[in-house]
C-alpha cells in the first residue's frame, strides 16, 4: 500500500519548471530512493512534500489524506519529517533539546503549564526527556545528550538530525543525502542504520542519495529524476539496466562502471 502518493506535481520558479508532473508512490515500510544528477529537482520534491513549497499543479497524499497546500508544521504533525542535505541542527541547543524540539507536535503543555509546572506538564516533560534519551541511545549518541549540537562530530550530527526527525514519530522519513561527506566506513554504518530504522521502527523511508553503491544496496524502489522529469522507476536491477538512466545520469559509456559498483556494494551488505 502506498503511504505517500505524489500525483502530477509541478513546481515552477518564475517560469522555470523545477518539477514537471512528477508521480511518485512510496510503499509502506519500503526504502525508496530518489536519484538524479545535480539540479534534477530532488530536494525541490522533498520541499513540496514537506509543505515548504506549494506545488502549482498536482497533489500529495499521505495515507490518503491530501496534504498538498498544508504548512510545514501541519505536514509534520500528520507524519512526515525530514533531514537536510547540509545538516541543519539547532546549533546552540544541546542534543536532548534538539530532540525535544522534534517532539514538539506531540507535547501538549502550553504557556500556563510551562509557567506553573502542573503535574501533567511535569510528567509530560519527564517522559519527553526519557524518550529523548532513548532516541539518543538508539542512534548511538548515548552520553552526548548535554553536548551543544554544534560540538558534535560530523557523523554524530547526522545521527542527531535523524533522531530529531524521528522524535516527531513520522510515518514517512525523508532523508536528504544522509551519507554526504562521509568516508566509506561511516557510509556503511549509515546504510546499516537506515535499514535498522525501517526494520525496527517500521517506518517508511524516502531518501535522496548520490552514492550509487548506497542506493543500489538499500533501495526497494528507485525513482530517477532528470531536469524535473521522472525518467525511470524500478528496482535497482531494473534501474541499472535502464539505458535512459545510464545516459542521463551517468553519461554515455558508464554502464559498465555502474555494474561494478553494485556488485561491490552487494558484498558487505
Amino acid at each position, binding site marked *: 500500500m502506498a503511504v505517500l502518493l505524489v500525483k502530477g506535481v509541478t513546481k515552477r520558479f518564475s517560469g522555470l519548471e523545477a518539477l514537471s508532473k512528477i508521480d511518485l508512490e512510496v510503499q509502506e515500510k519500503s526504502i525508496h530512493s530518489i536519484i538524479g544528477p545535480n539540479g534534477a529537482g530532488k530536494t525541490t520534491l522533498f520541499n513540496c512534500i514537506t509543505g515548504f513549497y506549494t506545488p502549482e499543479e498536482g497533489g500529495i497524499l499521505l495515507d490518503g489524506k491530501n496534504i498538498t497546500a498544508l504548512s510545514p508544521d501541519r505536514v509534520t504533525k500528520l507524519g512526515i519529517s525530514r533531514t537536510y542535505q547540509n545538516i*541543519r541542527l539547532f546549533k546552540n541547543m544541546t542534543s536532548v533539546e534538539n530532540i525535544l*524540539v522534534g517532539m514538539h507536535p506531540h507535547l501538549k503543555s502550553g504557556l500556563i503549564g*510551562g*509557567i506553573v509546572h502542573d503535574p501533567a506538564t511535569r510528567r509530560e516533560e519527564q517522559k519527553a526527556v526519557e524518550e529523548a534519551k532513548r532516541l539518543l541511545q538508539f542512534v548511538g549518541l548515548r552520553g552526548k545528550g548535554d553536548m551543544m549540537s554544534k560540538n558534535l562530530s560530523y557523523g554524530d550530527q547526522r545521527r542527531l538530525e535523524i533522531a530529531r526527525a524521528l522524535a516527531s514519530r513520522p510515518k514517512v522519513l525523508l532523508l536528504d543525502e544522509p551519507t554526504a561527506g562521509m568516508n566509506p566506513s561511516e557510509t556503511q554504518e549509515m546504510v546499516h542504520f537506515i535499514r535498522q530504522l525501517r526494520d525496527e521502527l517500521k517506518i517508511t523511508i524516502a531518501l535522496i542519495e548520490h552514492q550509487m553503491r548506497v542506493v543500489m544496496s538499500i533501495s526497494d524502489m528507485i525513482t530517477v529524476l532528470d531536469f524535473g522529469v521522472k525518467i525511470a522507476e524500478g528496482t535497482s536491477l531494473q534501474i541499472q539496466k535502464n539505458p535512459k538512466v545510464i545516459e542521463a545520469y551517468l553519461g554515455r559509456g558508464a554502464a559498465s562502471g555502474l555494474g561494478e559498483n553494485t556488485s561491490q556494494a552487494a558484498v558487505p551488505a
Partner: protein
Amino acid sequence: MQTQSPFPWKQVVSAGLIGGGVAVLLSLVGIVTAFNERYIVSGLFTMGQVLFLAPALLFANSTIRRIAPQPAPKIILAGAISGLSSAVVLAILTILGNLINLRIMFVNSSPELFEMLTFGQEYTAGILILLGLGLLLGGITGGVFLLPSKIRNAVVQAAIWILMIGLLRDMIVTVSYRWGPLAAVIKYFFAVSGLTLTGTIILSLLIGGLYYWRSGKTKPSVPSAQQTPLKRLLTLAGAAAVLLLLPPVLGTYFSEILDNVGMYILMGLGLNIVVGFAGLLDLGYVAFFAIGAYTMGVLTSPELGFYNMTYWEALPFALIACVVSGAILGLPVLKMRGDYLAIVTLGFGEIVRLLALSDWLRPWLGGTQGIQRIAQPRIGPYLLESQQELYYMFLVGIGIVAFIAWRLKDSRIGRAWMALREDEDVAVAMGINHVGTKLLAFATGALFSGLAGTIFAAKLTSVYPHSMNFLVSINVLSLIIIGGMGSIPGVFVGALVLIGSPELLREFAEFRYLAYGALLVVMMLTRPEGLWPEERRRLELHEVTDPALAAISKSKAEIESPQKAG
C-alpha cells in the same frame, strides 16, 4: 639562549602609543577633567588622573602578557617603555595645547586639562613628571607581572577594589550615615573626597590579604557548589531580607536609582524573551512601555476625566492593551527576519511616540503636556507613593516576571522560541507553528514592558511623550547584550552595570553613551557571550530535579547572590 632574542621594540612601543591615544581621546572628550575633583585617595590622586594613566597601564600589561616568557629585566623594560610611549603621546598633547589653541576644535582641551596633565607644576617640569610617571608606572606593571600569581592577583584585586571604593565614597558615606557605630569606623576611612591614606593602606592590606588567603584554598571550596537545601534556603532568605531592607537602609536617592534599575530589569526581562529567546530583534520595544504607561494614565487620571479607576483596576486593562499591541506588531512582521524586522519595529516604536505627541490625539493622550495625576497603587490603607515604597512594586513585579521567564525558558514554548531563533525554516519543519509562537513571544515581551510602564507612570504620577524615547529601547537592548543574550541573570547584571552604575557617579552622566559605546565594542571583542552568559540546562546525565544549580560554578554563585533574587 632566550636572552639573545631581540627586544620586541615595535610591539612594545606601538602598544604604548595606542594606550597614549586612548588617554588623549579620554582627555579631549572631557571625561578626565570631569573626574578631576573626585579623589580616589584623598590628596594623592583623582579619578581623572586614573583615567589618563590607566590606558598606559592596561596597554603595558597587555604587551607584557603577549611577550610573556621573557627574563625579568626585559619584562620590566618592556613595561617601562610601553608606559613611556603612552606618556609621550600625552606629553605631545600638552605641548600642542601650549603652542596652539586646541579649544577651537576640542572644547574640552581646557587649561584645567593641561594643568592636570602637568600635575599642577610648571610647564617643563610637568612634562618631565608626566614622562617619568609613565616610565615608572609601566615598570611597576612589569614588576607586578613578575610576582607569583597568588600575590599578583591579590595586588590587582586590591587596586581594583580601592578604585571602586574610592569612587563610591559618596554612596558609602551617605548610606553608612544611618548605621550608628559603624558610621564612625567608616568615617575614619574616608576623607571629604575619596579614601584617606590610612584607610587606603588598611583596606588594601585587608582586601589583598583576603584574596591571597582565599586563593590558597580554592580547591576545597569547589564541592560546596552543591549546596544543601538548608543552606540554599538560608542564602535565599538572606538575599530576600537584604532586598526587602534596601530602601530604608539606602535612603531616597539610592531608592530612586534602584527603581530605575528595577524598571530596566523588568523591560530587560521582557525584551530578553523577544530578542534573547526567540531571536526577534525588536528596536521599538519602548512602544509597549509607552502603551502600558499611557493606558494607566488615560484610565486613572482625573485630569483627562474619562475614567477614574484606581491603579489596580486599571492594571489589567493596561496589560491587556500591551498584549494586544504586541500581537498587532507581531502580525505584519511574521515573515520578516533580522535587519528588516529591526527597521519595522523601530518604526513602530516611533509611531507610538509620535501618536502620543500628536495634537490629533491631544484630547485623549494630552499631547506634549502628557498626562498628570495618575493614580498610585494602594494596598489596604497604604498608598505606595514614594520611591522607597514603589521599590516594592518593582521588586514584586520583577519576582513574578523573572519567575515566568525562567519557567518559560525551559518549557516547550521556550524550546520552540529557541528553535525559531536558531533556524526558523527547520523549526517550522519540526512542527512548530511559527505564527503562534512568534506572536506569543511578542505578546509576553510586551506584557512585561507594559507592567514596567504602569509602575513608571505611577511613580511619576505623570507620563510625557519624551520619556518614550528611542534611547530607552537601545538601553534595554544594550543591557541584554552586555548581560548575555537569553540569560536571565544577565539581565540583572546588565541593568546594574548600564543603568545603576552611571547613576552612582554624577560626573559620569554626561559620558554615559560614550561609555556604553566603548563597553559594547570591548564586550563584543573580548566577551561576546555577555557578562553572565546563558547556562544550558543539563538534561541527560544529571538529575532533572536540580539542574540549574549543579551547573552554576562557585565563583558565579558568589556574584549571583545579591542580584538573582532581585
